[in-house]
């Protein structure tokens, strides 16, 4: 599991535990046959919850928006790799890439939409990007380890979608 996936797993795990604790509190509270809470007060506190929700969402927005993969570049000295997706295979030129040298993938599709998803030798998903017919999509990545990398198609493209695989090599520069 990659770093971002781990962040998601831990965050979601924590929020699930907190949610379950909250839900159990509400559930068990219905056993107390007392006069109940001040319903009007709870209704007024909806405004506070509204403000809290907005603050949480804005915080998540600012904590994540700068990691959006758009608008990045590979810089000078990059390697350019041309990728074409088709039912049901990939052409990747060149097939051998240099380690620690930024790669600019230029991707297009011949027939239908595909998606270029790259895994390392540990089966960890490194990145993915959609590949649409009649368009050129760019993706940037710098491979830090040598070895064989696997490509799967991540957009459903028909009969042999699950067999639309390829590999490429990364070697020390």
């Amino acid at each position, binding site marked *: *599991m990659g770093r971002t996936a781990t962040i998601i797993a831990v965050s979601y795990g924590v929020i699930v535990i907190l949610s379950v604790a909250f839900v159990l509190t509400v559930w068990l509270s219905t056993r107390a046959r007392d006069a109940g809470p001040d319903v009007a007060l709870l209704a007024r506190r909806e405004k506070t919850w509204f403000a809290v929700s907005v603050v949480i969402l804005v915080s998540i927005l600012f904590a*994540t928006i700068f990691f959006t993969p758009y608008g990045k570049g590979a810089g000078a000295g990059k390697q350019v790799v041309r990728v074409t997706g088709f039912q049901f295979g990939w052409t990747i030129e060149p097939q051998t890439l240099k380690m620690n040298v930024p790669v600019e993938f230029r991707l297009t599709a011949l027939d*239908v939409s595909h998606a270029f998803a790259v895994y390392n030798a540990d089966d960890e998903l490194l990145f993915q*990007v959609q590949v649409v017919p009649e368009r*050129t999509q760019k993706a940037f990545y710098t491979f830090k380890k040598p070895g064989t990398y696997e490509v799967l198609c991540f957009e459903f493209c*028909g*009969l042999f979608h699950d067999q639309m695989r390829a590999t490429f090599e990364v070697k020390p520069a």
Partner: protein
Amino acid sequence: MTEAARERARALTLRYLLASTAIFLAAGVLGILLRDSQADLGRLDPNFFYAVMTAHGLGAFVGWAGFACMGLSLWVLTSVGFPLRRFGAAMAELAFWLMLVGVAGILVTTLLLNFAASWVFLYPLPFHSAGQWGDATTGIFSASVLVVGLSIITWCAGIVHTVLGPALHAVRPTLGNRLGLALGLGYLAPRRFATNPTPVPYAVIPLTVIGIDMIVATLPLAVLLVIMIVQSAAPGVTVDPLLAKNMLWFFGHPVVYLLLFPAIAVYYLLIPRYAQRPLVAGNVVAVAWVLAVFVNVIIWAHHIYIDYPSGSPQAAINTAMQPLTFAITIPSALSLYSLFFTVYRSKFEWTAASTALFLGLVGWLLAGFSGVVNATIAFDAVVHNTLWIVGHFHHMALLNIGLVIFGATYAFLPELTGKALYSDRLGKWHIWLTFLAGTGAFSLWLIQGLQGAPRRFAVLPDRYATLTDATIPLVIVLALAQLLFVWNIVQTLRGKGGRYTAPQTEPAGAPAA
């Protein structure tokens, strides 16, 4: 309300519920076939796998959940004093038959004619079948989906006509004023949007929002489908694939709310009933729903965050839609607050129906959080088109919307038939087994997604086999639990639970503060 109007709504709702339940069972069987095949228990031929996947997706999502929620809305409106008038009833009747015809067309083109381009039928895939189906089949499939779209628009027309009717008790009955009232603005500006004698029931507000939004959201999809029908006969007519993706998702996201917003209306009606006190809600909920009516139709691009080809404005559109998508979670956040605190320290009556609704709130809460992950571009770049997404939407569809449908069925069926529920105890077993087995199965999907397992693979890479196999017992329990539901419904309809006598009070709709 006249007895004739109530009878009209009763008959229509019952018909929607029974038809959608039949589709649910068929779509459920298809879902089991898919997961069993992935676990190599009865491996399906690849194209048949994807044809079943297409039928399961559209059948379960629109033919069951959407259709059921459309029907439940009719009874919710009737229950809060908004009966269908002649036009509304005619639209609901037409929507019912259009949905049946559309779903039948989808089932025939997928299961018999091999159409297998998935429920999103991502253009131009329907015209690149790898020899598995012909363009004529694509044309028939497109026409079938178009008929489903017409059903939704027709239903929306009936809903909007109903919510803007005299039941609003608008002091100033201009169209703008009535629209504002139905959106809940009376809670924000009671003088400008005055009613006499009662305020607008909360349950009316989400139905107004979705009634308006689905008309707006469905029209571009209808255009795309018409073009596809034309292309099936005249191959020279084509659409830009990226534009087609945007048109599809312009419908594809709001249609989620065709399920969620009626479900919220059910919650707004029934949770106060079982808690035996009014909904804990103030005036700020109106802000959220007014926000929703606009934002709902301008957040489609979060489904295509990973598309940002050079020379297109897609990256800018996608970036703008992250905060907008976050904004659409506000109605959910406020509604969950209202509903949980309506239950909190109440004299909550724990029946099969109310248990389903309470566990539905839990499902909504947990699936909502996994939805925030999807809404965040940096996170979506990792989970997009993985089994995480499948786990998220099954969690939302079955353990929020589905539980609302089950709960509402247990609550409403006696009102609709005059026959008491056969067994509340059996209902509780059904609900708990569904919740526990569903939570287990969908959690495994979430984990597989974070491990990088792709969705829509007839055969997954071997490295994901362990968790795929682990879901099978859970899927079996999930399926068996639905048999309890069916048995309970059948026995209820046969009158085995005895006669039903309606209670006299209905504590719903009035604000708490």
